[in-house]
């Protein structure tokens, strides 16, 4: 059923042979606060193969965002080692190996949509012609052609978030880190963007790491679901979700989907009872 796509160069990765986008071994992180130390991550071991779509799911405060920020070198782990595309997170950041999408679009209000998408390219020193080409391509990919000259406030929340995804893709990183990108949007928009994101992932073949606290979203999008529990943040289950990549929203009514969702829910519940 999958539409032939000449731009796609990565299909299903062959089992076992794919390189790792992220490799975490015994990663722990403790924040020193005025109320004493808070352990945000405890002994996290995780492999994310290239080309996968991996979701971190868990209740608020379970460290899923912190783990993402460690991958992005926005936080430093206090113990353990982590490799991103085979190098340290800092090297990966300096080499611009990943694009980060935050919960809020965080577009710069004084820049038009096209200039927002071009911002990382400006910072990375791409030639103007190449910048224009990339902006056009990625705005088209997120269905925002025709909105190049609009300012962010002229767009809806969902469109702004799509622009921020185009911005993260514009410099063609291998890895896309998405921290609850649709958390602030209503469910109808969210469903729509989930479908678009899946198509986008399919077309570009990137590795996506996705933080969410929505079970349907995680199951619908992911090839692998990492269930986390709070205080301290630990991984309590990694659930494979190897369905075909061309999923549609109807997939969410199938028994297979519900079975996985059930397992995720059970994992989350066990994590909770552990704590309370």
């Amino acid at each position: 059923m999958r539409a032939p796509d000449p731009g796609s160069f990565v299909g299903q990765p062959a089992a076992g042979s794919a390189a790792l986008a992220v490799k975490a071994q015994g990663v722990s992180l403790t924040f020193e606060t005025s109320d004493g130390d808070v352990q945000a991550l405890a002994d996290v071991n995780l492999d994310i193969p290239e080309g996968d779509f991996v979701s971190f799911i868990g209740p608020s405060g379970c460290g899923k965002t912190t783990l993402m920020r460690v991958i992005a070198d926005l936080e430093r782990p206090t113990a353990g080692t982590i490799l991103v595309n085979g190098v340290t997170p800092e090297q990966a950041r300096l080499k611009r190996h990943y694009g980060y999408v935050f919960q809020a679009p965080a577009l710069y209000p004084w820049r038009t949509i096209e200039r927002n998408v071009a911002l990382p390219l400006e910072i990375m020193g791409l030639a103007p012609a190449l910048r224009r080409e990339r902006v056009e391509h990625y705005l088209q990919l997120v269905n925002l052609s025709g909105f190049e000259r609009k300012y962010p406030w002229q767009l809806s929340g969902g469109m702004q978030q799509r622009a921020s995804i185009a911005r993260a893709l514009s410099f063609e990183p291998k890895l896309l880190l998405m921290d609850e990108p649709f958390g602030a949007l209503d469910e109808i928009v969210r469903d729509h963007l989930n479908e678009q994101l899946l198509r986008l992932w399919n077309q570009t073949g990137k590795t996506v790491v996705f933080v969410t606290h929505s079970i349907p979203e995680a199951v619908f999008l992911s090839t692998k679901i990492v269930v986390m529990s709070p205080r301290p943040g630990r991984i309590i289950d990694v659930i494979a979700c190897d369905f075909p990549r061309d999923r549609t929203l109807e997939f969410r009514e199938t028994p297979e989907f519900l079975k996985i969702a059930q397992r995720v829910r059970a994992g989350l519940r066990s994590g909770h009872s552990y704590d309370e």
Partner: protein
Amino acid sequence: MSDIYAVARPAAIRWHPAVVRAAPVTAVVTALMVIWYVAAVLMNWNIVRSQFERDDAPYTTGQLIAGTLDAERPLLPAPHQIVATFAEDVFGWPVTSPRSLVYHSWVTLSATFVGFLLGASFGIFLAVLIVHARTLQKSLLPWIICSQMVPILAVAPIVIVVLGSIGLRGLLPKAIISAYLCFFPVTIGVVKGLNSPDPIQLDLMRTWSATPAQIFWKLRWPSAVPFLFTSLKVSITISLIGAIVAELPTGAQAGIGARLLAGSYYGQTVQIWAALVAASIVAVGLIGVVDLIQRWVGQMMGARA
């Protein structure tokens, strides 16, 4: 069915939007004028009566009231006296004449302008330093705050004398005093503005491994622009006040401050008021100019209309 309600409700009187907009202001101005005229009659009453008595002339209450509104050196001049003097001082002389208010306003305005440019640039410079070095914030900020606690009227003559001794006279000492007063709001506003970007926006810059210069020019500076203009509007009126104040202790020959001083020496209250009107018109004009620039910059930066 709805037409029943339409009939039942009396038609509301629709005023022209211009009337709606102007009405509150007009009402306040009218009230002020009434209060002013009453106050002028009351305050000048004794002056005028003693004048009549000294001249041993018979007078009626009507003549007395007319006299209070037309005295040569009233305690409180009536608005029409101020308007007349103002009009004569502005239009009655060539603009280069030392008797022209336009000439004096220009002298003060040029000092204000230079002072404002100096003060605003210095204010921005300090803000950039403070934002980029935490140690500077701790060491500079107390001094900056202290500088604003010193009464400028006491400092102004010192500045004039010191600068005069190294050969600086005229416009520049006034501009420096004006700059001294007006840099402060700019520094405070711009520090706030440069620190205003969202943590997410700063994180984004980090994920793109932007250099500090790129973070400054592409994020911090544009974020600070709205704060900058708010400060500039406060600062430009302060810099006008600074220029006028600087003219007072120095016995300046020209400028709005010199006019105020001369007026109070010779008891020319009407002249003082006319100079005050000139000062307010200049101040309104200056804020208007900053406001226009702000709108233009806002448009460039995609602000909501």
